[in-house]
């Protein structure tokens, strides 16, 4: 053991940091799920009380529904866009490839605060650019940020803008890792472009798609910055997703026990869903 002391020495910083900021919080959080604590006064035991409250918490279920709705609104267009862009960027004859890649990826490196504020300007009800353009083509202006129906689409549009480039880059890397031999063999056998796509590209892209799906799932559930700055979850609770609600319960209401209970419950379901998605990968590889 002493012979290998360097091994243990080199990995110990990770384990120490993980112990303090990962493992201990994980266990403490679990313990808190069964308690009532505001971080300032004494902690009281609540047993399953938090879970019972959670089951009847209308805002919690609204936040889950909002998360799902936002996801449904933005993930499909983003995925399709990313994939199409990736394919186009992967073609041999495309010029300005670097420019396109940079243009689509730039939203990813921008602070979300800035993105949200710019979109607040663009979404302005009377003087926002989007509504101005809409009125010019004869359509009605959309109350993006002040209406309960439009607050989620407002966030969804922002998310598509933000994440298409990111997923595009991932998918591009995936496309580039598919060996040309497959395509050549298929061409020799007379397969047309759509058949090549269906039988070669899509199956071999499966791992990437699965990775992107899981990242999107986790991202949508826990997303915070965009909602916090753009709508604060409003109007009402129409755009409150889970990430924002968790923050509100934790650091506005200061209900640490209840927040931990909520976080654990949702994390558990996200975990199960991720496993399910990963299982799709396993079944696909043949």
């Amino acid at each position, binding site marked *: 053991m002493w012979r290998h002391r360097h091994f243990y020495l080199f990995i110990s910083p990770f384990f120490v940091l993980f112990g303090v900021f990962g493992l201990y919080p994980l266990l403490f959080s679990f313990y808190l799920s069964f308690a009532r604590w505001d*971080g300032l006064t004494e*902690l009281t035991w609540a047993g399953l009380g938090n879970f019972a409250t959670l089951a009847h918490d209308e805002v919690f279920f609204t936040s889950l529904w909002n998360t799902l709705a936002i996801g449904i609104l933005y993930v499909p267009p983003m995925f399709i866009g990313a994939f199409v862009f990736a394919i186009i960027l992967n073609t041999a004859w495309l010029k300005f490839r670097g420019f396109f890649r940079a243009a689509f990826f730039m939203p990813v490196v921008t602070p979300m605060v800035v993105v949200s504020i710019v979109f607040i300007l663009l979404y302005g009800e009377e003087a926002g650019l989007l509504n101005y353009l809409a009125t010019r083509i004869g359509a009605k202006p959309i109350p993006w940020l002040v209406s309960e129906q439009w607050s989620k689409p407002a966030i969804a549009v922002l998310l598509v803008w933000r994440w298409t480039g990111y997923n595009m880059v991932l998918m591009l890397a995936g496309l580039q890792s598919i060996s040309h031999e497959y395509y050549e063999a298929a061409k020799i056998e007379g397969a047309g472009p759509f058949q090549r796509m269906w039988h070669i590209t899509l199956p071999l892209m499966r791992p990437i798609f699965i990775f992107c799906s899981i990242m999107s799932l986790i991202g949508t559930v826990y997303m915070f910055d965009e909602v916090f700055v753009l709508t604060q979850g409003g109007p009402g609770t129409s755009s409150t997703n889970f990430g924002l609600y968790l923050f509100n319960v934790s650091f*506005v209401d200061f209900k640490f026990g209840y927040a931990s209970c909520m976080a654990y419950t949702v994390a558990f379901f996200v975990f199960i869903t991720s496993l399910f998605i990963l299982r799709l990968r396993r079944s696909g590889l043949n």
Partner: protein
Amino acid sequence: MGSGAPSHNTALAAICVSSLALIGATFASEPLALDPNVSAADLTGDIQVWGWNIAAASLDKLVPPFNEIYPKVRVHVNMTGANLQSRFLLSLSAGVGAPDISQLQLAEAARYSRTRRLTDLTEVARKYEKDFPASFWKNCVFEDKVYSIPWDMGPCAVFYKRDLFARHEIDPASIETWDNYIAAGKLLLERSGGRVKMLALGTGNMEGLFEILLQQNGGQMFDDEDRIAINSPQARRVMSVIRKILEAGISANLTPYTHAFYASFTTELVATYPSAAWFGGTIKDYAPGTSGNWGVFRLPAMEPGGLRTSNLGGSVLVIPDQCPQKAAAWAFIEYTLCTREAQIEQYRNFDLFPAFLPTHSDPFFDAPDPFYGGQKVRRLFSQDIERIPPLNRTKDWFEALRYLTQSLSKWYADGMGSTEDFLAQLEDKLSRRLGRDVAPREPSEGS
């Protein structure tokens, strides 16, 4: 690593113990005591004050006169409204970053007092106890120590539109009880062909009216031992008034403080607004053109001869315990909240009704107010303030209020079922969600 049961238990025990170490940390707050050797002219300090909009503006305006007495104390009033509660609580928890003075709503004072992160002001503030209404002072005291100082309050009355009342021949002097009020509302509805409603009552936000009525009646959400006491004869009477208002159809379903609500100040949809003194400021802000058309009559009583006022809202100032310049902070609070001239200035310029009772004898209270057609509304608001019963708020006030709002909304949407059932269910919900016992019931008087 061995995986026998004993090592699991010791690990668990270690976690529990260290967790308790993390959790249990009572901050002992030493009461603020002033150094008698430091005179006002010599007191130094550089203090940050947090507040929101008008209130902060009014404090800011008082800084120059304050500096005439305390020339070496610099005051910065910070008007950030965004996430104030979150940032304040985070700073209190962390022990760093809190301002030297912060504004709080009266209704939250109890919650913050219990955190033990506020300065104990008993020694310096006790002498002012008689200068504030008992109902307010009670919320500022915890475990017999003073943690916050009352600032402005919201004595309740009814704002009404003179032209609508005149046109439909409703005499405000005839409204003495809630029954009178409702009857007048029905008359108004009839005489205007159904167009004019007596009040605006958003069915999704009935907690404001509920709170006014409950306090007027001496009802409680929590008893003195912090148990749930909502299922009481007083609450039943409150529900009866609300039920009668809704059944008579004399209310307009407007969500308070929305665009449509403010618009109602200038249209003919709503004739009266039972609210608090600060509401006048709201009307002036949103409908300045209606000056002269407003009047105020006293809040209707539950029964003839009953109390005709209540309280809604109000703020306090607190000094977080981490403040390094408590003497300077206290000097500012004492000047702005406990002197007649500062409190009168705030009322004069910003419509903040002073909680400091000695101001009420100022001639300003007897001056006619042109906005209300020359009526002496300030004197009206100041009547019977000492008789307002205190409301025991505990640290869970706002959460309880949220449950109340949701329950009332649901009760209305479900067709206004029996009051007995409603209160029983609310009591049960509060007890479970807040983890508190239910107070033993008083004998029922029937509603």
